[in-house]
């Protein structure tokens, strides 16, 4: 039996990404969903990991025009901060501007040790192309991914990760989830917390050797 990744790669050759065709303008996908009509993304088995049970795993489109499984490709194995945003609401709630400042403090660690994922709550307007321009305008570097996708998938992500009550409209961008996926450490902060506090939080969940343990002294 083929692995899921092999299956997807094979599907790319024969199946157009029907469900995500609206995002075709975002660029050619590295991964192409086989979900189209007959296979729900959520029905696909996740790759598994310490936090796999918690995260939804829809197929999303990145601002770079890549298709990605949300958990498998963007969260698994990483230290990551996750926020919700929309281009329209940025003026009112400047979460992306705040993360742009945070990004500067992360320096070389971004894209190597830590990652940022920004999920739009306005997928109809925030197409990959729009997000690409938006990311560029905010100086997003490698390691900071903006994602969009099917409205129902964005809602699933929002209700799980960005919402207080697990239901309702995608109205707020206040919650910033951060954690260390392989170590299953997750917490939240206010998305508009000071940039140095957000950067510091990502360092909290890093795993550091006990400096006074016998093994550390060898």
């Amino acid at each position, binding site marked *: 039996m083929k692995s899921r990744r092999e299956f997807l790669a094979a599907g790319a050759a024969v199946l157009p990404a029907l469900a995500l065709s609206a995002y075709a303008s975002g660029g050619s996908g590295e991964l192409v969903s086989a979900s189209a009509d007959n296979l729900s993304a959520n029905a696909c088995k996740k790759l598994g990991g310490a936090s796999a049970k918690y995260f939804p795993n829809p197929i999303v489109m990145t601002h770079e025009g890549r298709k990605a499984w949300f958990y498998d490709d963007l969260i698994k194995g990483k230290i990551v901060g996750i926020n919700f945003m929309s281009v329209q609401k940025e003026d009112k709630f400047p979460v992306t501007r705040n993360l742009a400042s945070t990004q500067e403090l992360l320096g070389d660690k971004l894209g190597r040790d830590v990652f940022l994922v920004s999920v739009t709550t306005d997928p109809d307007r925030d197409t990959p192309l729009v997000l690409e321009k938006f990311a560029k305008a905010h100086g997003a570097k490698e390691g900071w991914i903006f994602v969009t996708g099917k409205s129902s998938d964005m809602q699933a992500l929002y209700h799980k990760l960005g919402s207080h009550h697990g239901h309702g409209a995608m109205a707020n961008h206040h919650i910033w989830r951060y954690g260390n996926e392989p170590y299953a450490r*997750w917490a939240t902060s206010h998305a508009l917390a000071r940039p140095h506090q957000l950067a510091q939080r990502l360092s909290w969940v890093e795993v550091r050797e006990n*400096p006074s343990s016998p093994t550390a002294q060898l």
Partner: protein
Amino acid sequence: MAASKHAFGVGDLVGGLCTPDNLTLDQDDPGSHDFNLSPFVDPLPIMPVAQAVNIPLAPPIDPSRHQRYSEFTPQKIYIQVLREFDHRYHRDLPETKVWGFNGNVPGETFHARYGEPVLIRRYNQLPANHVGFALPSVTTHLHNLHQASESDGLPWDPVDPGYFWDYHHPNYPAGGDPLEKQTTQWYHDHRMDFTATNVYMGLTGFYLLFDDKDTGDENDPSPQAFGLPSGKYDVPLILHDISFDPAGQLYLSQNINGFLGKYFTVNRKVTPYMEVEPRKYRFRILNGGPSRFYELGLRSDQKFIVIGNDGNLLPAPVIADTLKLSVAQRHDVIVDFSTFQPGSNIVLENLLEQVRGEGPSGRRFDKGAGDSVMQFRVVPLTGPDRSRIPKKLRALSKVNLKKVKKHRLFKFDYIGGIWTVNGNGFDMDRIDAEIEQGSAEIWTIRNGGTRWEHPVHIHFEEFQILEFNGKPLKKGDVNISRKDVLTLGPGDEVKLLFHFRDFLGCHVMHCHNVVHEDHSMMIRWCIVPPTHGPALGEIIEPRPVMRLGNPPIGF
């Protein structure tokens, strides 16, 4: 009208806690597993009493890190090492990883005395590579003991694996006033953003204070001594509700409204039993959270004789049928089992329905139909009961409003999924209130919500309730007391009186539904010198950081 619900009688299985039709226990609980656990099969564990050490500390204590150290030179030194180990929550469950102190979960019970300052050195030897919901970076808060900021165990004072922290506890009553003495305190983790997870893993314990009245000896011949039940008849009980995953390991969801466990534990055993003699007992009952509220009752005609609220002895005992406990609240009670024959069983039950982490549903079960918390089994008396219940305990200091220099309003609410105080999430770099040392203030605490409850906790100084929803408390209310946790129901507004004394520095006020606390419902306030003036930008306080070091051999 009381809620209808099946009762768990003796021998019944402990099922999941109440789940009325169309409501789930926890909206986000896919990993929690139902085990058919028989109640009352495990004896109640009693935590050992902490023992002082008589060995030199290396590196030595640094007095410059502690305010008023020379005035309160420690007379006893304790060492606690925080480690991960295996613990069995119930006879029929496998062992699960927990975090505790010197191999104990809950940690050892401290027996401290007024006038006898202590220092506790706590080494963090938790596994740095721990996999799971908790963070092995800790800070141990001694809940409302009157201690300086640097020894309070504040959220922004992390101690990482491999490091230690010295906690200096003067055991000195606020303002030097004997009426401010405390009795039942507790210590617990307070790590910023990870308090709920780390407390859930086991980082809690009791810290009891005694003096020349509450002496801890029921046979004390001193005319001043209260003679309250002591020794093995003085029993601390900490309640936590917890869940397990299908493998029987501790399970905690990422729900940010609050977490409700499927099983009640007392001293970290699921629904245990305790053998009691037909005599008086003193129970120090603490709701250790994370999010559940309790109204405790006995399935008998027995009443509680309440002698303490939030670790403060009341002016006089109050007779109560039930005890309400929001998270972190404590009640010291006397229960007299002398009317029971050996062989009798009495169940302690929770009568409050709660199906959401935000707070109770507002419904209350009929007596006998609540959820079992633990069972008392009466065994023969082993000796005469010479303990007493004095008519008067510790008077309240008179309310003096002359020193009040400031009124403040704090509104507890939420915005966009973040639990807020005055519209803000917690900011460790923002001072939300600067308070002149030696002054008194009136704080109005308002619940901006209509559906949720918040157990609001203010560190360092006890408060008295001046008004609850515009009215003073009625005579006989157990909340006519010094307190450190305020239960704020939907729409409630409460006026509190504080005096801020003795030490400079910063502390916090927060919701003690620790899930709300971790999701930002906290402020930072600071006691500043009176001459500092209103434009103060910096706070004078020693800010020690964690120090590197391994525990001594044998720990």
